[in-house]
């Protein structure tokens, strides 16, 4: 049966033109549509976006005439862009630190042979299964300054502590980091937990025999060994900070653009105001920001996989 099938396959392949009988060529042929699609839809498109950022296209009708640095000058002089840069720093600091610290803490606790581990793990990762739009919607309701969480805080006796959350004209961005971390810290927890589980028990035992306490164990053994996981978490949360779009789209940009982001600014300029050139400049800027974050990561992962 086996040989019969392969004999049939052989006779079939005899019908194909000669150059197609080579399996290696068939393989390349099968991959070709994907290569072309990715090349066009990712790389040509990125180049195109770059080009549009140098064009005069600032109304609905297509206009690709060369405008030099006009859009870039407009971008650099736009106060909203300055606010967005500040917001990016605020968001990245708040979001990345929450995700990494909470993710690590929860993974370390879950690694301690906890009763109900599956329950906790499931709950911690559940927000990641829903859309960021859902996160923004629920948290917007919870962070209404006159009520929501503030009501709980007041009931606990801290009536004078009434943060404005995402309505805060300066620090609204930090309130948004909570919405982001709510979704992604569970993901980081899962990464760390997998990393911790991969550390051989002998290592821990050896360190304990050497007299290491829990803190020393983490400081000198676990945290250094988990460095690749931390690297992954930094890259993923960093990329998430740059691309942040959903939450401002749901809750608005706040007073004085306090909760605006580059991603939302790009969207509004391009698809609401038809300033395609300016939008493309913002998009290009976002791409350029991402490269130094991703490149070292991918190179280090690839090098590791080769070994």
């Amino acid at each position, binding site marked *: 049966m086996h040989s019969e099938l392969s004999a049939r396959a052989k006779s079939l392949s005899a019908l194909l033109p000669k150059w197609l009988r080579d399996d290696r060529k068939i393989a390349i042929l099968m991959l070709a549509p994907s290569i072309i699609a*990715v090349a066009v839809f990712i790389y040509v498109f990125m180049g195109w976006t770059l080009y549009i950022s140098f064009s005069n296209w600032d109304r609905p009708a297509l206009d690709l005439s060369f405008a030099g640095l006009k859009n870039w000058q407009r971008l650099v002089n736009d106060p909203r862009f300055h606010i967005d840069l500040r917001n990016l720093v605020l968001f990245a600091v708040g979001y990345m630190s929450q995700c990494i610290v909470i993710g690590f803490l929860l993974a370390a606790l879950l690694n301690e042979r906890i009763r109900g581990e599956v329950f906790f793990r499931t709950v911690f990762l559940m927000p990641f299964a829903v859309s960021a739009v859902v996160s923004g919607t629920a948290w917007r309701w919870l962070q*209404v300054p006159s009520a929501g969480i503030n009501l709980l805080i007041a009931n606990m006796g801290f009536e004078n502590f009434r943060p404005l959350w995402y309505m805060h004209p300066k620090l609204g961005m930090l309130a948004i980091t909570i919405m982001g971390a709510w979704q992604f810290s569970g993901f980081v927890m899962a990464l760390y937990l997998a990393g911790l589980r991969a550390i051989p028990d002998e290592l821990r035992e050896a360190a304990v025999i050497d007299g290491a306490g829990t803190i020393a164990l983490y400081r000198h053994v676990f945290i250094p060994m988990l460095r690749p996981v931390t690297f992954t978490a930094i890259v993923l949360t960093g990329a998430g900070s740059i691309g942040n779009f959903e939450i401002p789209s749901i809750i608005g940009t706040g007073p004085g653009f306090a909760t605006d982001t580059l991603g939302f600014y790009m969207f509004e300029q391009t698809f609401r105001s038809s300033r395609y050139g300016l939008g493309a400049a913002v998009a290009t800027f976002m791409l350029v920001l991402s490269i130094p974050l991703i490149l070292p990561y991918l190179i280090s992962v690839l090098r590791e996989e080769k070994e």
Partner: protein
Amino acid sequence: MSWRRLLAGSTKYAVLIAFAAFYLVPFYVMILTGLKPLEDISSFEIWNMPKSLDFGSFREAWNQMDSNFWNSVRITIPGAIVSTFLGSLNGYVFAKWGFRGSNVILFLFVFGLFLPGQGILIPLVWVLQFMGLYGKVNGLIMAYCIFGIPITSLLFYRYYASVPDELVDASKIDGCGFFGIYRRIILPLSGPTFAVVGVWQCTRIWNEYLMALVVLGNPARAPVTVAIKNFSSMGVIPWNLQMAAALIASVPTIAVYLMLGKLFMRGLLEGSLSG
């Protein structure tokens, strides 16, 4: 010593329970608010239990978004299936038929994975308009299939790379070609990976928002994520409808996550390159 151990043990659980509450509160409030009729919605009563069980908000939200829900289904299923199959084929080529430069191509695929979507939006709209697919469900499906290629190829590649080359070489000697090996050796081993990648793609496509908003902004054709946004930009915010809508939109992905959590977890670990 035992006192200290007891204290340490209960602190652990206290921290875990506190965080479990943090992750669950938004779901709790969504359910609570969704179960109240509009006249009982006041931000001061956010924590109060509903006076009686009232599914009116869910019914109303569903009536307003049922077409969006089915749009999401119509987009997610073909998008996930096509991108998963493409990923399997590509992963097979990358892992077992590597050619000069195939590593560079894989690298470029993966690189695209981490870039912000805004970088390709303007040309995407332009090309979809050119193809007559802008504002159409098929246009968005096509976009999801293409932008799904990097992650699905990567996930399959990582799995197929772990399939011993000897298996492939042995069937080459038996006279199997490219497709013969794929069908007899690779596909029968791929079931679990298909499940992992399929679950991952379904969740990602269902939850996607930016591209959906740009390509399918039209309220009648939009998927659920865009429909939630439309609830939130009404003049006076109908919190009950919004929460009900957000919950309805989350039911499929939460159900998949609760039933297939292990697959979900594997997709997460492999996709972040740390599995």
